[in-house]
């Protein structure tokens, strides 16, 4: 048989089987005129030709020996379900009388045969051949449709196997729930996770079975459940919840609930769930370790402070110097707090500044003497510590010699992004005593102009003006800022709109 649409020509090919010359030639000529493709075929070639593909077979009584009939019957019986090769058999009147022919006519296999008694008009033969080919074309059409369907079936079986291989081998628990939030499928991981089998869960409400109670024992009504909201809201929801195992224990899970749409109508929800007990425990442990580390740092700093104070007990050292050391140690300690709270990932510049300057009366709302304005930026831990220390030095200096030393003095700390990928911090003192550049460079100035600039990979400059000290610190954003999803700043755009305190 032909392969699919590979050989349409063969599908309408008429085999002229062992036709003797006079008949054969006349028939060939006539069919040639009528445009019907044909081929002479010997008995020996019959099987092969039929297997390659054939539209109809024309044969004459005189060639139908017992051997040929047996071969024909075998070929016909071997045909696939859709195939019934039409035969056009040329007979003569005397055939009717022969026992051999009666057998042929009554053979159960030879049913799709047209018997044409010779002599006959050639047009009658052509008509019979065309009818046979038309019938045969229908058979081939049916065959093609069957094959297509078989291929689709095989494809969908392969897809289904693949899908179930994925579902049964993933460690993610997967549920399908219908439009009533009832479970219609769950995979092996889901059975493992929940303690229920698919049979037990089938047609039951997922929420009422797995998610019915809060950890504190209060009932968890379905309308409060974010997993079940995905369906009515037609929106993917994600989050963390606590499920109840079949044996009654609670376990924390992360879930994603995705509504399934068919032709834009939501028909159910796919829910993926995984156990996050370990992750929760790890986070808690990390938190504990972080706290412990902070505790050690604090105690070490307290010890350093104690060693300092006790070592210098009775020595002639000014109270001021003593106080400066202690306040520096405490400033270092405070900036560690912020980083511990954020798990040493990052710290907000605004908060770093606020914490460093709060002991000096800083306010976040620009109403006090020391105002802080600037958009939200996230700093890496080391620059955060460095900036906190620098601000502490500036503020200490302002209290002793600058704007915070006199009534009416004020300080504005602000920052903005400037060209060249720098974040520029500006410390501007106003209304303070007139300051002059000191002859020697103290610790605070060294820390800012050298240490801070070094630590940040940027520049820091302190200048002394009639009105007070101005310090500009340029920080390269690439190395000091933690990139957020929206870019380096969350709300840099609102910077310009933040109220600036009037200068005074």
């Amino acid at each position, binding site marked *: 048989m032909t392969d699919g649409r590979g050989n349409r020509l063969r599908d309408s090919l008429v085999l002229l089987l062992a036709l003797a010359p006079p008949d054969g030639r006349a028939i060939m000529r006539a069919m040639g005129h009528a445009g019907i493709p044909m081929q002479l075929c010997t008995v020996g070639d019959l099987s092969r030709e039929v297997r390659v593909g054939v539209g109809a077979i024309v044969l004459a009584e005189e060639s139908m020996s017992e051997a040929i009939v047996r071969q024909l019957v075998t070929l016909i019986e071997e045909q696939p379900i859709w195939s019934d090769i039409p035969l056009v058999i040329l007979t003569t009147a005397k055939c009717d009388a022969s026992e051999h022919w009666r057998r042929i006519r009554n053979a159960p296999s030879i049913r799709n045969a047209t018997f044409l008694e010779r002599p006959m008009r050639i047009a009658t033969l052509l008509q019979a051949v065309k009818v046979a080919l038309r019938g045969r074309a229908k058979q081939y059409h049916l065959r093609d449709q069957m094959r297509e369907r078989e291929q689709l079936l095989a494809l969908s079986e392969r897809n289904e196997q693949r899908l179930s291989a994925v579902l049964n081998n993933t460690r993610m628990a997967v549920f399908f729930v219908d439009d009533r939030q009832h479970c219609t499928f769950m995979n092996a991981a889901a059975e493992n996770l929940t303690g229920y089998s698919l049979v037990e869960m089938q047609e039951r409400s997922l929420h009422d079975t797995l998610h019915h109670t809060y950890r504190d024992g209060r009932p968890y009504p379905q309308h409060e459940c974010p997993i079940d909201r995905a369906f009515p809201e037609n929106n993917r929801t994600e989050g963390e919840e606590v499920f109840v195992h079949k044996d009654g224990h609670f376990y924390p899970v992360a879930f994603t609930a995705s509504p399934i749409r068919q032709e834009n109508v939501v028909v159910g929800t796919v829910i993926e769930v995984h156990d996050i007990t370990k992750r929760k425990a790890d986070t808690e442990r990390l938190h504990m370790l972080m*706290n412990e580390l*902070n*505790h050690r740092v604090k105690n070490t700093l307290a010890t350093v402070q*104690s060693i300092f104070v006790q070592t210098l*007990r009775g020595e002639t050292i000014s109270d001021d110097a003593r106080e400066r050391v202690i306040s520096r140690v*405490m400033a270092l300690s405070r900036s560690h*707090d912020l980083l*511990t709270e954020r798990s040493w990932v990052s710290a907000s510049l605004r908060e770093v500044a606020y914490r460093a300057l709060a002991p000096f009366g800083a306010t976040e709302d620009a109403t006090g003497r020391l105002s802080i304005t600037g958009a939200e930026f996230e700093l890496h831990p080391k620059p955060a510590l460095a900036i906190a220390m620098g601000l502490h030095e500036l503020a200490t200096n302002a209290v002793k010699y600058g704007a915070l030393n006199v009534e009416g003095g004020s300080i504005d700390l602000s920052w903005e992004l400037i060209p060249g990928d720098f974040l520029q911090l500006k410390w501007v003192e106003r209304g303070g005593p007139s300051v002059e550049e000191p002859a020697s460079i103290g610790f605070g100035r060294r820390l800012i102009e050298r240490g801070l600039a070094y630590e940040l990979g940027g520049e820091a400059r302190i200048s002394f003006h009639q009105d007070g000290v101005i310090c500009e610190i340029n920080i390269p954003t690439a190395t000091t800022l933690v990139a957020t999803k929206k870019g380096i700043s969350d709300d840099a755009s609102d910077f310009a709109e933040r109220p600036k305190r009037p200068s005074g």
Partner: protein
Amino acid sequence: MTHRTLLKGRNVLLVEDEMMVAMLLQCLLEDEGCNVICAGFLERATLLAQERAIDVAVVDVNLHGEHSYPVVDALAARGIPFVFSTGYGGVDIRTLYPDRPVLAKPYNPHDLIAALSALIAAASGND
């Protein structure tokens, strides 16, 4: 009244497991004229809190890995005022003892003196 006069002659229980810090605070409080009773371990500190004559106390939250809650509970039972000193963020104790003052280590020694004086002043005011 100044701090000095408030603290002079007072019995102060100092509960602290860091040797160096304890030494510093002891010196500091003795300079203020206090009689300082020191304890670095939970058991001894609790016993002292239950039995000794104490005017005011400084209690480190963590003593060799143990919480010092029994110490402060004993003090509270006797109506003795105290201030916490802690190296942690202090979140737990602020929830458990919301009304008690907390000093986060390292703190300025003057803040300790101020805190203790305030407690003494409040206690005298109640008398």
